């Protein structure tokens, strides 16, 4: 382990990272957002979902620097009197959680299927790829909307709200496996042609071992590139779903639901209820995308095509 | 009066690791109807020399010094517009792999006719007739049908013939062929080289043939240039180079040919490898691998010593020949 760490420190990778200001800034911002949001229970000034801490008299207070602002609520409050700063912290936490777990699910699913398809080839490969093609043509968002809508219609909003976070992770996770599968499969096919695989086979190593111990490490860089972009996409998809009312409920909102609940107040003047969550969402996604772009340039310019 | 004169050409590539000199003080001439070969290992700078003549070196490469005199102009100083009129018109080029050279989504006909339209005022029908005529000249059967076909529908050998036909469309003065047979099957290689030879003689074309294959050079060219690490190390009539090489590197190349060893013997190798262009040794670039190395070789680039129409850049040879 120590040796790998030393190699990493001395690598070209770290060198480029240092030099590229955009990557540095993006990564720091991301780190801050993640750290801050995951420690929300510790650092948020209020718990916005504890009814005893909310006073409806505080509702629609503008942010600190405006006239009617209140020191207790630096970013203002929403229509129920909840502190915006706290809701955003908790909301970011939920958005990130869903994004990360969904990507975890799709990557595990996709990598496994991609490895199988690529390594075993033949009919299994053809079948899996056809499936992937068809699934890709039905956009994730569409499938998610339909599935979640039906779920909600069938089981009612009560049950739905409890399961929302789980459902979101499942749906986004399962819908996006083709991206990973395709990329991994392409890598596997390229590696299969290389001689070290033949060498390993000649020595007598079993298929699974070759696949996991030898081929997989070489497919890691495209996987890494995709993962960042997929996290960004997952967060965006979840935000869209929550905005439509099919995602996180109002009492346990993600950034998307926050934007949704603030939408109606744009025209009546309380712009901050939507604006701040929106800003955080955009920054979060932007930073992740920038990192993904940078990773792609550094690791291999030609390997990932949208 | 030489047709093409390259004088003291220097081409550099600024890279992240430092600046790379791909061509260092390269000079040679080409006369009308003459066939010149440029040989050397991969990375020696042969292709760069060819591309530089037509100013086709990819960015970030640039011409740092020197001249390329052709038909009264210095091509190195010409604008893109002026070069457009020379390329494919007065000087044509043939690349290595015909599958990559022809655009897969355009028909053969389109790719031929556009060359004519680019340089002459000519009607569509007349252009097609000329195209068919050229296809016939390169011995492609049923030429009219070929015009409608796409590159992937032809075999490798036929594709290269098409590329040659395209090169001939405008009756250029010079054809530059960059490894024209390397990507082809051995049997086809011979056919293509014969075709090139035949056409050059027919149309009195000057040919610059770039290759690493000494056998091809021996059969086709009249004079040969040997390059090493961006530098010309020897030049002379092809027969002299093959039979009487003077530069240690050229001798090494000739000796390494399988024909030069007896069965059962090990093949003769030149020890070491050619240095990457980013770290060329000081003095004579070949000195780390040379068995005749002298102290001066490490510090000074040798001048050319000329004898019997050959020129060689070697301290050892120069020394030996002044003492005899």
């Amino acid at each position, binding site marked *: 382990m120590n040796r790998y760490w030393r190699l990493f420190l001395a690598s070209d990778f770290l060198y480029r990272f240092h030099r590229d200001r955009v990557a540095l800034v993006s990564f720091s911002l991301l780190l801050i957002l993640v750290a801050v949001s995951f420690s929300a229970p510790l650092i948020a000034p209020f718990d916005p979902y504890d009814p005893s801490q909310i006073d409806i008299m505080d509702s629609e207070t503008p942010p600190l620097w405006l006239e009617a602002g209140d020191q207790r609520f630096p970013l203002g409050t929403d229509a129920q009197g909840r502190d915006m700063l706290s809701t955003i912290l908790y909301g970011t936490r939920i958005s990130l959680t869903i994004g990360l777990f969904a990507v975890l699910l799709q990557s595990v699913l996709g990598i496994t299927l991609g490895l199988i398809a690529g390594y075993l080839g033949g009919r299994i490969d053809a079948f899996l790829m056809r499936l992937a093609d068809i699934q890709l043509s039905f956009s994730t968002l569409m499938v998610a909307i339909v599935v979640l809508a*039906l779920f909600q219609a069938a089981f009612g909003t009560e049950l739905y709200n409890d399961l929302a976070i789980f459902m979101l992770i499942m749906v986004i996770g399962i819908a996006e496996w083709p991206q990973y599968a395709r990329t991994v499969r392409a890598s596997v096919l390229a590696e299969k042609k290389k001689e070290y695989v033949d060498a390993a086979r000649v020595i007598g190593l079993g298929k699974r071992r070759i696949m996991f111990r030898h081929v997989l490490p070489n497919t890691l860089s495209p996987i890494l590139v995709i993962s960042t972009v997929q996290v960004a996409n997952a967060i965006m998809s979840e935000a869209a779903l929550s905005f439509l009312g099919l995602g996180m409920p109002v009492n346990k909102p993600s950034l998307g639901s926050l934007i949704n609940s603030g939408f109606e107040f744009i025209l009546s003047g309380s*712009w901050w209820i939507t604006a701040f969550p929106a800003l955080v969402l955009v920054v979060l996604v932007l930073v992740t995308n*920038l990192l993904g772009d940078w990773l792609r340039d550094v690791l291999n310019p030609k390997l990932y*095509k949208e | 009066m030489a047709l093409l004169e390259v004088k003291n050409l220097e081409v550099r590539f600024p890279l992240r690791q430092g600046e790379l000199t791909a061509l260092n003080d390269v000079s040679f001439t080409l006369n009308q109807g003459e066939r010149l070969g440029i040989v050397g290992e991969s990375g020696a700078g042969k292709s760069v020399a060819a591309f530089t003549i037509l100013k086709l070196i990819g960015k970030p490469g640039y011409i740092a010094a020197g001249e390329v005199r052709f038909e009264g102009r210095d091509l190195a100083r010409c604008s893109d517009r002026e070069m457009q009129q020379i*390329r494919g018109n007065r000087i044509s080029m043939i690349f290595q792999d015909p599958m990559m050279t022809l655009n897969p*989504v355009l028909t053969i006909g389109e790719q031929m006719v556009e060359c004519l339209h*680019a340089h002459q005022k000519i009607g569509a029908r007349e252009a097609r007739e000329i195209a068919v005529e050229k296809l016939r000249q390169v011995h492609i059967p049923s030429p009219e049908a070929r015009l409608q076909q796409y590159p992937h529908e032809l075999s490798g050998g036929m594709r290269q013939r098409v590329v040659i036909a395209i090169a001939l469309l405008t009756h250029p003065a010079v054809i530059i062929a960059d490894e024209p047979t390397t990507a082809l099957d051995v049997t086809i290689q011979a056919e293509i080289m014969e075709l090139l030879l035949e056409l050059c003689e027919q149309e009195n074309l000057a040919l610059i043939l770039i290759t690493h294959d000494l056998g091809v050079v021996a059969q086709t060219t009249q004079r040969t240039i040997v390059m090493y690490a961006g530098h010309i190390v020897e030049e002379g009539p092809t027969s002299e180079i093959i039979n009487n090489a003077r530069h240690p590197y050229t001798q090494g190349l000739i000796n390494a040919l399988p024909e030069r060893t007896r069965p059962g013997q090990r093949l003769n190798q030149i020890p070491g490898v050619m240095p990457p262009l980013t770290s060329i040794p000081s003095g004579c670039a070949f000195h780390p691998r040379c068995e005749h190395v002298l102290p001066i070789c490490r510090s000074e680039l040798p001048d050319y010593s000329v004898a019997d129409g050959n020129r060689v850049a070697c301290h050892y040879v120069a020394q030996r020949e002044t003492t005899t």
Partner: protein
Amino acid sequence: MIAFLVRRLGQAMVVMLVISLVSFSIQDNLGDPLRELLGQSVSESERDLLRERMGLNDPFLVQYWRFLKKAVQGDLGNSYFFKRPALEVILEKFPATMELVFGATLIILFLSVPIGVYCAIRPKSWFSRAMMGLSIVGISIPVFLTAILLIYLFSVELAWLPSYGRGETTVVLGFWQSGMFTRDGLAHLLLPSVALSSIMLPLFIRLIRSEMMEVLEQEYIRFAWAKGLAPKRVWFLHALKNTLLPVITVGGVQIGTMIAYTILTETVFQWPGMGFLFLEAVNRVDTPLIIAYLIVVGLIFVITNTLVDLIYGLVNPTVRLAGGQR
């Protein structure tokens, strides 16, 4: 060519069958048609009788077959809310959504190709760098946020453009309700189209740029230069044709995404299209309408994907199956 078509059509049929199966299972399990028809005050035994008469107790496959037969004839049941044939209700809103998609597609086509090509040819110019920067920001802003932003800017602050609905529409060709032939209609169409295109435009700009840059590195482009061809021809024929091929493929996949995004856009702008209707139907548990939407959208997907594949096969000579003469 024929073999290709047959295969694609077969695939399309399979997909439609799956969609119809899914839709039917939904219908079977979601909501109670009887309740909608009769209300609460009918007795249990009468309900059971009706159930038997309507064939709701028959085995799954029998009901499914019945469903398919009716579906093929265009009968997908009546919307509970509108009390009219569901298919009719959906198709009424079809022009609205289609015009929105059309507007967005126009914007994407007319902007992404020139900008993408320019950025590929002159990647270091300030314009290209600006475009690349903007495009990353563009793909990071979700559609609905762009929509909200546009409304805030152009409707609330500047009051230049309307923020909801379709405005004035006229009936074209006897049945298509179009908003494109009146000034008011076009004013209403502008912001939603821009919003809908906002996430795919940067995507295509980047895609075209990266594809074209790769193409420009190819040997055949170098050869084109060596032939002395004019730059315009090299860029816009030799390079562009090769660039657009993978773009067509991606475009096909993105159509599905765009339809999903219409739901978002229509919601923000209260655009009376199919997507908006679908969400309302979900909220009301109006099952026949939900199913009608699924089937119509499924059909649109399948048709456009097949068309895109076909077009690709026609345009790309290396894929042509029946064209080669030897």
